[in-house]
């Protein structure tokens, strides 16, 4: 057991977006244990929410996570409406579904770019983010901003989608479909990527249930749960779509689930655009009665859950937020342990932990608790493993 040099990594590190801090305890090549230290980004949102009125909370809640920045207001609006059962006009339901699905596309494309980066395909990163610009443009047309759209309002939607936007949106969807086909080719048919992603970081069905994992992470292990179908909110029961599940629960099936979900999202968006009736978009509720409200919806990473307790005034007594990654994080104990460290990065990225905080891994030697390899080495390991597999498979340099 050669002695290793201790590599202290402060939470601030290049290419690191979110300073979470992972510590993998390693015995030789395989990971023995994983510990994560979060809290560098904790902003005390629940305490702030108690001093704000319901309208202001929607804007506060929108800034919880930068990538799925419409799933939180969507749940919060449903929770507040759940207290008094305020009704919402039909057109608003369609617009809400539309924005949620666009958000899913935006988030999955972003994840695809990152996974490509971890596996050494820099061009996949650039291309995925190039096509993500189409989604951002559609968002700018509909809501006026690339992220943080401020679209949801208690009782309806804040902005309407005029008819002259329709052709632009439909055209955007067609180019996106072409892009998704190309990415489907890149992920599913590429032998090296397949060999690289298959069979690692397997989350068994029992573990998925035991950890109550959510979203694509659990659906890829055969747990057939999707809040959009189990408790249809907005317009999900008026639109035809189906839930995508895979069975073997490894990183490859997580990628497959996400890509096929992109097809579903595009078809949902198209149906919403066609079926959208004319009519009001906001029921302008008068008052929120005393009581409690619970709501949960299917965000790109899993189920988001909000709990509101109100006392009749226009600001809540208690506002509980639970993001999907909060439940998906601990599944690392089940998926990463036993894998080689070169695969650790891609497994951690597979649950798409709210942007690439997996950069923050340091590997700790099991015996003398010394850190061995930095986060970047892990990425290099995973990238070179792709290269080695590629050479073995096709006998020529990775092109």
């Amino acid at each position, binding site marked *: 057991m050669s002695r290793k040099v201790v590599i202290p990594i402060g939470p601030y590190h290049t290419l690191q977006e979110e300073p979470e801090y992972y510590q993998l305890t390693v015995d030789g090549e395989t990971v023995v244990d994983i510990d994560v230290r979060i809290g560098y980004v904790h902003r005390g949102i629940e305490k702030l929410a108690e001093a704000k009125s319901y309208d202001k909370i929607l804007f506060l809640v929108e800034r919880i996570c*930068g990538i799925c920045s419409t799933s939180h207001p969507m749940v919060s609006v449903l929770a507040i409406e759940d207290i008094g059962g305020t009704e919402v006009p039909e057109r608003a339901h369609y617009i809400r579904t539309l924005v949620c699905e666009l958000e899913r596309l935006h988030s999955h494309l972003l994840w695809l770019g990152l996974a490509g980066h971890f596996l050494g395909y820099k061009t996949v990163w650039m291309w995925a*983010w190039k096509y993500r610009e189409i989604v951002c443009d559609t968002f700018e047309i509909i809501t006026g901003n690339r992220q943080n759209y401020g679209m949801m309002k208690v009782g309806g939607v804040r902005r309407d989608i005029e008819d002259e936007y329709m052709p632009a949106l439909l055209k955007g969807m067609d180019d996106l479909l072409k892009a998704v086909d190309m990415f489907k080719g890149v992920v599913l048919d590429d032998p090296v990527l397949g060999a690289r992603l298959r069979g690692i970081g397997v989350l068994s069905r029992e573990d998925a249930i035991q950890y109550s994992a959510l979203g694509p992470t659990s659906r890829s292990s055969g747990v057939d749960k999707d809040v959009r179908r189990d408790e249809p909110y907005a317009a999900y029961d008026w639109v035809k779509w189906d839930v995508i599940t895979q069975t073997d629960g490894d990183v490859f099936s997580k990628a497959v689930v996400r890509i096929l979900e992109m097809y579903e999202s595009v078809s949902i968006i198209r149906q919403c655009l066609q079926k959208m009736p004319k009519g009001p978009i906001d029921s302008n509720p008068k008052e929120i009665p005393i009581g409690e409200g619970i709501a949960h919806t299917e965000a790109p990473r899993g189920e988001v859950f909000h709990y509101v307790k109100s006392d009749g005034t226009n600001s809540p007594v208690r506002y509980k937020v639970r993001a999907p990654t909060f439940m998906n994080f601990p599944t690392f104990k089940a998926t990463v342990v036993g894998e080689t460290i070169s695969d650790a990065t891609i497994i951690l990225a597979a649950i798409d932990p709210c942007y690439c905080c997996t950069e923050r891994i340091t590997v700790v030697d099991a015996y003398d608790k010394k850190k061995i390899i930095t986060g970047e080495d892990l990425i290099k390991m995973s990238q070179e493993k792709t290269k080695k597999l590629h050479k073995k498979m096709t006998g020529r340099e990775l092109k």
Partner: protein
Amino acid sequence: MSIRLKALLKSPWVFHLCSGSCNNCDIEILDCLTPRYDIERFGMVLVGSARHADVLLCTGIVNKQGVSRIKRVYHQTPKPCLVVAVGNCSCSQERFRGSYSAAKPLDQVIPVDVYIPGCPPKPEAIIMGVVKLIEKVKNTK
């Protein structure tokens, strides 16, 4: 305006510093690297170490854990070093002011040269901010 300062303005190396951000601004900063808003044509490169950096792009409210770390990184960057506060959160802790885990706004922790408002500021706005930074340095020295 010494030749060295002119050179600094032609090739500002950028280091990204995130503390308590909802990673919207971080994505927008990385968007600047992608093909559509490429900032390498202005000579800006996302650099790995604070030692090599000229411009510190700070995002997010400085939460209580982040204060000491940000000070340390700021002292490590070789002067002349410029600080850009990207997004409303780092300009003024806009929405999270008064939260128990929000320490001080960025400009009370390290001296800030340019503020880029917006939540998140569009990549064009970030590039505009850096252009303003260049003009500011040009006029002062």
